[in-house]
């Protein structure tokens, strides 16, 4: 086994432990847990037995196993980028809703106090 294989397997093990810790703390849904376990387990298997990617490459018609892994990594990266962007947009909108609600509540409170002042 080459050094790079050991590094990749160790990293996958570390990432899996982080996923499990996060799940146990309640910060992750069962579906996401399953997906992340499948992903990091695949990384570990491919690192340990690189020839397994050739099976997938032959099935997909890509040619070399390494190329298949690269294509899938790029696809995965784009998907994660999209998910992150969508999440940020969603948080951005939620923050605006909170800030707006607060601003309008303060405005109405000021209006009410002004009305009370005027009526005195």
């Amino acid at each position, binding site marked *: 086994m080459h050094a790079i294989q050991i590094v990749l397997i160790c990293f996958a093990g570390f990432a899996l432990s982080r996923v499990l810790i996060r799940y146990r703390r309640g910060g992750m849904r069962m579906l996401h847990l399953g997906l992340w376990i499948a992903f990091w387990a695949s990384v570990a298997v491919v690192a340990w037995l690189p020839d397994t990617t050739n099976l997938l490459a032959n099935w997909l018609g890509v040619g070399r196993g390494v190329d298949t892994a690269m294509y899938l990594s790029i696809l995965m990266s784009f998907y994660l980028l999209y998910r992150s*962007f*969508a999440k940020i*947009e969603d948080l*951005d*909108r939620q*923050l*605006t809703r909170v*800030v*707006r609600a*607060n*601003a*309008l509540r*303060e*405005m*109405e409170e000021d*209006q009410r106090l002004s009305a009370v002042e005027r009526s005195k």
Partner: protein
Amino acid sequence: MSQRIIVIPAYNEERTIADVVREAVKFADRVIVVDDGSRDRSGELARESGALVVRHAVNRGVGAALGTGIEAAIRLGADAVVTMDADGQHRAVDAGKVFERLAQGDVDFVIGSRMKKSDDSGHMPAHRVLFNTIGNVLTFLLFGVWVTDSQSGMRGLSHQAARTIELRTNGMESLSEFLKEMKDKHWRMAEVPIKAIYTDYSMSKGQNFFVGVKVAIKLIFRRFIG
């Protein structure tokens, strides 16, 4: 009695906000300045000049500030709402023209167009014409609405339009999102020529290439993702 309200989003505009509000109050029953988390005295100066100030605790962008201002106007009983910029680019007299157009009752949404020619039109710098044209084309391609000035900050909304508008974007891209709302909600639209005043200050506040790219990406996201 009909209530006309001008909404002005402001972020660090202490150099111009007092003059803008003092002019605006002449053409509206009420002026609302949305202080979008300014770190300077914009809110304080706007209040001293006669505006009702609604304050965002943190900066959320011009679209978010417009949404807050329009919502505040509706809560205060607005029959018509006109938005204008805080940097001194717009003349309050043009806000009056937009109110007059809305008062005719046959439209729900009015754009104060800097590109539409009239005797009173000003001269728009060439790079601004280019940005606006790109904005118009992008708005047309994404939302299927063609107007002469999709990036104008001076807009008028009837009570019905102001009550039902739902802006989801926070930044400059909201200017094009108004037009999506117009199309989705079947508002009747008109454009009124206005004159923009270009100063070094107002030019420094407007769009540049990088803002334009960011706006384009957000609009594409808004169109295809939601």
